C-alpha cells in the first residue's frame, strides 16, 4: 500500500518537472506580452531617462527575453521569485503568508461540500429510484446556477445583517493575533490551546467556506448520483439484495464505495474551481488569502508577484492531482499492481 503510494508520487513528480517548466514559460511569455511597463509604478514622476535605464539594468529588464526567462527560472528553482514591485518584499514571503489562509479556506469549504453532497447525492439517487427525480433535479440545477459570490452576498445578508450571528470580515477577530507557527489559523490556535480564539477563527471561516461549498456541492451531488445509478445496475448489488441485505446497507456499504471513485476524480479536476472561487470570496469577505493578494498584484501591475502566484497555482494543481491519484489507487483495488 505504502509502496504503491510512493510509486505514484515518484512517477507524478517526475512528470511534474517538465510540466512546471513549460507552464512557467507560458506564464512568463504571456505576462511579457502585456502592454504594461512595470517600471512606471516604481519610478517617481521626476525620474530621468537615465534613472529608468539604471533601474532597468538593475532589475534585469535590459537582457533579451529568453535570457530574462532563464534568469527568472534559475532564481525560481533556488526559491527566489523576486521582489514584489509594490510591496517591496520577496514574493515568496508574501505568498507564504497568504497561502495557508487560502488553503485553509479551500479545505474547510471542501469538507462542508462533502458533508452536504454525500447525503445529497444519496438522496438524489433514492429520489431517482422512486421516479421523483424532477424536483430533485430542479433543486440541484438551481443551486448549480448560483455562483459563489452570490452565495457570499446572500449569506452575509442573512447571517451577517438580518440575523447577525457570524462575522463576515477578516480571518480572525481584531483582538486576536495569530501565533504563525504553521500559518494555518485553526491548527496554530489549537496547538497553542487558545480555544476562544480558535472558535473566532472558525466562525470567520464559516461564511466564506460555506459560500464556496454551496456552489461546489451541486457538481459533486450530480457525479455521485450518476455513480450510484451506475452501481445500482451492477450484478453485485442484485446479489447483495438476494443475500438479504437491507437497502440501506447496500447503498452505504456497497454502492457508495464504488460510486465514490468517479467522484474523487471529479473533485480533483474541479479543485481549481474552489481556488478561483476563493479569489472572489476572499475579496468579498476581506479574507487575507492568495485571492486578495492576486487582485492587488494585478491592480498594481506587479509582474513578479503575478508570476509567482500563477506558478503557485500550477504547483497546487499538480499536487492535488497527485493526491487524487494516490487516493484513487488506495480506494480502487483494481488499480494496484498485478
Amino acid at each position, binding site marked *: 500500500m505504502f509502496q504503491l503510494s510512493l510509486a505514484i508520487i*515518484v512517477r507524478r513528480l517526475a512528470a511534474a518537472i517538465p510540466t512546471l517548466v513549460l507552464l512557467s514559460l507560458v506564464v512568463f511569455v504571456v505576462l511579457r506580452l502585456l502592454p504594461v511597463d512595470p517600471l512606471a509604478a516604481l519610478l517617481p514622476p521626476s525620474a530621468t531617462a537615465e534613472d529608468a535605464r539604471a533601474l532597468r539594468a538593475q532589475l534585469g529588464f535590459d537582457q533579451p527575453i529568453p535570457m530574462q526567462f532563464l534568469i527568472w527560472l534559475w532564481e525560481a528553482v533556488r526559491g527566489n521569485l523576486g521582489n514584489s514591485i509594490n510591496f517591496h518584499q520577496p514574493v515568496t514571503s508574501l505568498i507564504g503568508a497568504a497561502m495557508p489562509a487560502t488553503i485553509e479556506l479551500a479545505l474547510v469549504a471542501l469538507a462542508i461540500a462533502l458533508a452536504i453532497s454525500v447525503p445529497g447525492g444519496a438522496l438524489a439517487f433514492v429520489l431517482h429510484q422512486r421516479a421523483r427525480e424532477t424536483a430533485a433535479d430542479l433543486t440541484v440545477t438551481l443551486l448549480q446556477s448560483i455562483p459563489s459570490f452570490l452565495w457570499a452576498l446572500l449569506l452575509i445578508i442573512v447571517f451577517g445583517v438580518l440575523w447577525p450571528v457570524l462575522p463576515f470580515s477578516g480571518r480572525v477577530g481584531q483582538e486576536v493575533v495569530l501565533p504563525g507557527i504553521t500559518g494555518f489559523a485553526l491548527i496554530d490556535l489549537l496547538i497553542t490551546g487558545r480555544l476562544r480564539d480558535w472558535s473566532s477563527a472558525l466562525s470567520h471561516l464559516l461564511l466564506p467556506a460555506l459560500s464556496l461549498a454551496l456552489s461546489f456541492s451541486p457538481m459533486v451531488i450530480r457525479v455521485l448520483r450518476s455513480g450510484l445509478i451506475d452501481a445500482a445496475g451492477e450484478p453485485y448489488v442484485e446479489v447483495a439484495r*438476494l*443475500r*438479504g441485505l437491507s437497502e440501506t446497507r447496500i447503498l452505504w456499504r456497497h454502492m457508495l464505495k464504488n460510486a465514490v471513485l468517479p467522484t474523487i476524480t471529479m473533485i480533483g479536476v474541479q479543485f481549481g474551481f474552489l481556488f478561483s472561487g476563493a479569489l472572489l470570496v476572499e475579496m468579498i469577505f476581506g479574507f487575507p488569502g492568495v485571492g486578495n493578494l492576486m487582485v492587488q498584484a494585478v491592480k498594481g501591475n506587479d509582474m513578479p508577484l503575478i508570476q509567482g502566484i500563477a506558478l503557485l497555482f500550477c504547483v497546487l494543481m499538480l499536487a492535488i492531482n497527485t493526491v487524487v491519484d494516490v487516493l484513487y489507487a488506495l480506494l480502487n483495488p483494481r488499480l494496484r499492481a498485478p
Partner: protein
Amino acid sequence: MMLSVTNLTLSAGEQAGAKAGAKAVAVLRDITLSVARGRVLGLVGESGAGKSMVGRLIAGHTPRGFAVTRGQVMFDGRDLLQLAAAERRKLLGRRIAFIPQEPLSSLNPVMTIGQTFDEHLMLLGVASGERAAAIVNHLAAVHLPRPEAMVRRYPHELSGGQCQRVLIAMAFASDPALLIADEPTTALDVVSQTHILALLKEQQRLHQTAVLLITHDLRLAAHVCDEIAVLYAGEQVERGAAREVLGQPCHPYTRALQAANPDVHGSQRQLPALAGQMPGISALSAIAGCRFFARCPQALAACGSEPQLLREVTTGHWVRCAPGCATNPAPVAGDDLQSAAWSAPVGDWNSPPLVELQEVTLSYTARWGAFGQRKLVSHAVNKLSLRIQPGEFVGIVGESGSGKSSIARLIVGAEAPTAGRINIAGRERIPGDATVARLSRECVQMIFQDPHSALNPRRSVYRLLTQAYELDHTAGSLARKTRPERGAELLADVGLPADALSRYPAQLSGGQKQRVNIGRALCVMPRLLVADEIVSGLDVSVQAQILNLLLELGRRANVALLLISHDLSVVRYLCSRVMVMQAGSIVEEGKTEEVFARPQHPYTQLLLRSVPPADPSIAWPPAPGQKP
C-alpha cells in the same frame, strides 16, 4: 415439498403506468412446479422464456409494471407472495440462497473476499470471533486452494470459476433449504463449468438442499437435475423426470430444442432449425392459442385458437400439447434432412494456402513499479504456425485466455505479431505496407462476436451491410456493382426479408442482427471469414439457423471460415479441421472427426469430457476433487 409453485401467473400492464383499457398480458402463464428436499429441478428455456423471472418472483423481486395475478409460491408451508417484504428478506440468504449468473461481477469489486464473506456471516449471526475461522472452513469446503490467502484477495484477482466457488461457499454457509442457481456456469469456460456443476451437486447432496437450476442448456440440465420443466414464452410446455424429458421429449418445442443442439460424438446430421423466434412480451397479447403455434411443425388448426392444457402423458410426465401430437411422437421438424449427405467444407488443398502463420509470437509487456522497472512479459501466442486453405472451414477451440482470439486479431491485422510471419494470399503482411493491408482487407473479413454492440444503432441495415462502400468504393470487388445492388444481394444472401433494408438494429432480433453482421463481412467478397464466438450469445434454435447459413454461404461463395469457439459441438458441426489451443500454442490438430473420436492430448481429452453427453444415461459431470 420444499418449494411448490402453483398456477403462477405474472401479468404486465396491471399496475400504474399502463394505458386505461390496455389488456393485461400474462408474461408467465400458469406455472406449476415443485422441488422436494434433496432434489434438483431444472428450469430450461431460451432467453426471454421467463425462467429467470420465476427465480426473481421467489425472491420477491417483482419488476416494476408487473404483478402476480394468480397462483401461489409456497416455501416450507408459507406463501412467499403473501409475506411482507421484511419477512421475505429475512428468508433470503438464510433459508433461500442464490447463485448468480456472472460470478466475476457479482462480488463487490472494492471489497476483499474476506470482507464480503464476513458481512454475510455477520448477517447470519455468526459471532465476530468465530467468523474468520468459519470463512476459511467454508472456502476450503468448495475446494478453493489456499483459503487463508483467498480472504485477502479482491474479486478481480480471481478467475470466474474461483469467484463462483466463493459464491457457492457463501450460499451454502447458511445451510439453506432452497438454492436457486440462475445460469451458474454460463459465463464460465467449459472446463470450469464441469467443476462448478460437480461442486454444486456435491454440496447439494451434502446439505440435502432443494435446488432450482435455471439454464438454457437442456442437455446439461438432463444430467444435473432430477426433474426438468421446459418453458416457452412464459408457459410451461413440458415437465417430467430429467432422463425422460431428454430421452423421450414429447412437446414439439422440446424435441426441436433437443434436435437443434449439435452433438460432439455420434453420427453427423444437418441441424433442423426452427423458423422464426420466440415471441416477445409485446407480441404475447396477440396470441390466442398455443404460444408455440407459429413455429410448430405439427400444429393443428385448433392449436391456433385456444390454449392447450398440461396433460399427463405418462406418470409424472406432463405436456402442454394437443392430445394427438404428444402421445404420438411424430418426426421432428427437419428430420427428413437427417439422411441428406452432409459434411463440413474441406477446402481446396491443391492451391497454395490462403492464410499462413509462420512461427508467430504475440507478447504483451506489463510494467509497474515507480520507474516501470519491474516487467512481466506474457505470450498470448507463442511460436505458432498454421495454414488455412481456400474454402476450408477450420475451427480453433480452447478456454478463454488460451490465445484463440489473439489469432483472430493477428489474421485480420488488428494486431501486429511480435515475431514471425503472416502471409495473406501468398503475400507477407508487413506493418505499414498499405498495399498488402488493403489486399488483406479484401481477402479477410471479421464477423464480430456480439451483434448487439457491433452494429451502429443509428445506421440502417442497408448502410450497415454496404458499409465497405464508404471506405473505398473503387476497390476491385466493390466497383463491379453499385451500392444498392450489392445491398439487395447481401440481404438475400443472409436470408433477411426484403423490407429489412430500411430497418435499424433496434428493430431486429438477435438472430437477425447476427445475419446483418455476417452480411456486412461478406460485402467485399472476402475469401476468408474470421468468426470469433459468433453464436455463443444466441439461443440454440437461432444458433442452428446461423450455423446452417454459414455452411450454405461456404458452399455457395467458396469462402473459407476460421471459427473460434469454446463450443466443441459447434466446431464439429461446421469445421472439417480443428486446432486445440492451450496457453498460446496449438496442442493438437487434425480432422475434426478424428480428433474428437480419438483425442491424443490430455487437454483435448479434458475438453471433450467437459461436454455434457447427448445420452442422459452416461454419468456427468465427473466427480469433483480435481483442482480448479
